[in-house]
């Protein structure tokens, strides 16, 4: 189990950085989708089955579709246009920044100053999620419903054709 987590962590990190650094928007969106899928696998292995399903179906699916439709609506993926945005030069420092902060974080984490709280992984049945969501967190349910209504109103306000 641990090996799967490590592999998926490494892949998610690589694809996440690629999503930021790549010059072509289409490849960027696909890298984001792969990173989301890796995160979904990690969540499944850690026991959060429902969250993994949600993550893979929504983030790897829906958001990628939104991006690809935005890219095609704005015609922005032609090669000569992509060079205009100078992404390669602007992001050139990112690997260096990441390596330096990685080293700093490793120093912080391996020093005796740092320790995480005790671990108690519990394999909980799916019933508990249903009970938690629908009886304990009703404010969140109301919140989610309102967020979705707001999203619908947004689409009407922003995407209607000009009159």
């Amino acid at each position, binding site marked *: 189990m641990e090996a799967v987590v490590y592999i998926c962590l490494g892949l998610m990190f690589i694809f996440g950085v690629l999503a930021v650094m790549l010059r072509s928007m289409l490849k960027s969106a696909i890298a984001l989708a792969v990173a989301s899928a890796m995160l979904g696998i990690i969540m499944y292995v850690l026991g959060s089955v429902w969250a993994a399903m949600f993550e893979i179906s929504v983030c790897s699916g829906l958001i990628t579709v939104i991006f690809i439709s935005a890219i095609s609506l704005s015609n922005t993926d032609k090669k000569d246009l992509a060079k205009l945005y100078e992404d390669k030069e602007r992001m050139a420092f990112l690997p260096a920044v990441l390596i330096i902060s990685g080293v700093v974080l490793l120093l912080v984490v391996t020093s005796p100053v*740092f*320790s995480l709280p005790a671990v108690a992984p519990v394999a909980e049945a799916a019933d508990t999620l249903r009970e938690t969501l629908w009886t*304990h*967190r*009703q*404010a*969140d349910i109301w919140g989610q419903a309102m967020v979705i209504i707001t999203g619908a109103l947004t689409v009407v*306000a922003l995407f209607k054709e000009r009159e």
Partner: protein
Amino acid sequence: MQVIEYSAVLFFVVPLAILLINILLPKQLAEKFSIYLAGIAAVTQIAASAAGFLLLSAYRLHEYEFSLFCDTTNAGSVRFAVNTFSLVILFCIGLVSLASILVANRTVDKKRAGYVNLLMMLMLGMNGMVVVTDLFSLYVFLEIVGISSFVLIAMFKSDTGLEGAFKYLVMSVLASIMILTGLSFIFMQTGSLQYAHVMGMNLLEGQSSPQLMLIYTAMILMIAGFGIKTGAVPFHSWLPDAHQSANTAISVLLSGIVIKVAGIYGFIILTGLFSKLPAVNMTLAIMGTISIIIGALFALRQNHFKRIVAYSSVSQMGYILLGLSADSILGLLGAIVHVFNHATFKSTLFTNAAAVHEQTGTYDIDEMGGLEKKMPVTGFSSLAAFMSTAGIPPFAGFWSKLLIIMALWNSGLQLFAAIALFASIFTAAYFLRLQKKVFFGKLLSKFAGLTEIGGSIKFVQIMLTVVTIATGLFFPFALLYLRGIGIL
């Protein structure tokens, strides 16, 4: 008791009902009547929050929990609760929404139905933020407020509107990321995010220093996140752009209530839950002081009416942060009274900006002069708002600034009290410049045919000025009343 329950549930039900009616109406009717429907919602909110406040104090209760068509007998379930402070904020939400609707009656010509829909969602989000009892639900409703305000700024699709909305969006998602990361670290430590649970846990005692590092990181992240939402310095860069480019009815909303509910209420919760950590208060005090000074200094250099008022908001948020950092009931009271006063005088100022723009067609103060002769109501309300901001008695701003400075003095932060007092000079300076350039002086010849603004905008100006003056005159009685019901 039942009345309190009904009035509390109204905060959710009325905006939803108005939204539903507005969506179901056919298009022509919606464009004509939606503003009146929105007005009904705002007036109901004002009435419900006032009734709730009076009833709560009559029953000597501090807090009342209610549920929204769900079952609250479960021990661990998340409830909604109103207490006397949140009812004051709910009253402000209603008042500023009413001001915005009346201004929008004149300034919003197309897409009125869309404006009303989004305004109802914004009101729902703000009401939700104030009544929940859980940190994560606070985040969810904060996002609702954010999303509605982006779209309200952008929906008229002008170049500047879209640009201001995009800049606000980028800063706001940075804030969301920081707040969520902080929340996840707190969740790691405590296992639950409800206010009662987090307050009950003593986060400092019995902890070894490694676990403290996570909590301090969480605190830094959450202060930074809510600071971006408030528009405190050094995170204020989105605020003038968003206010300048939005339709003035929406600038009224943004500055009058959104930055306060989204940002300051978050800080109220943070200081309520975590004030025992010593660095939190000092950080807030420093952030507040820098906001006051830098906001005022930038306001002196602007030439656009709305930008001056926007930087003034940055400055006043600093005062409220100072009040919160004093960590006493007096400071909290001063902060909330200043939230109420800022709502009224900032709405008055933006309404005057709308009035001036409607009649002269420009926002540039270099092109104006001597408007007071032709627009006396606007001039007088602007003068009243300016004196209230600067803290001149007997206007309302004097009392709230006095409470904040007293609270700072009492809790040992005398240096900050002195700086706050001294910075009032800057406040007076930039407003005096605005008043002189726009209203006093010689009337330019091109304005010879100018008339006073009429209709709903005039009504808003008169109403808000009356509220400011009345609050200022009757405030000592309000203090006595609060002592009577046991808050002070």
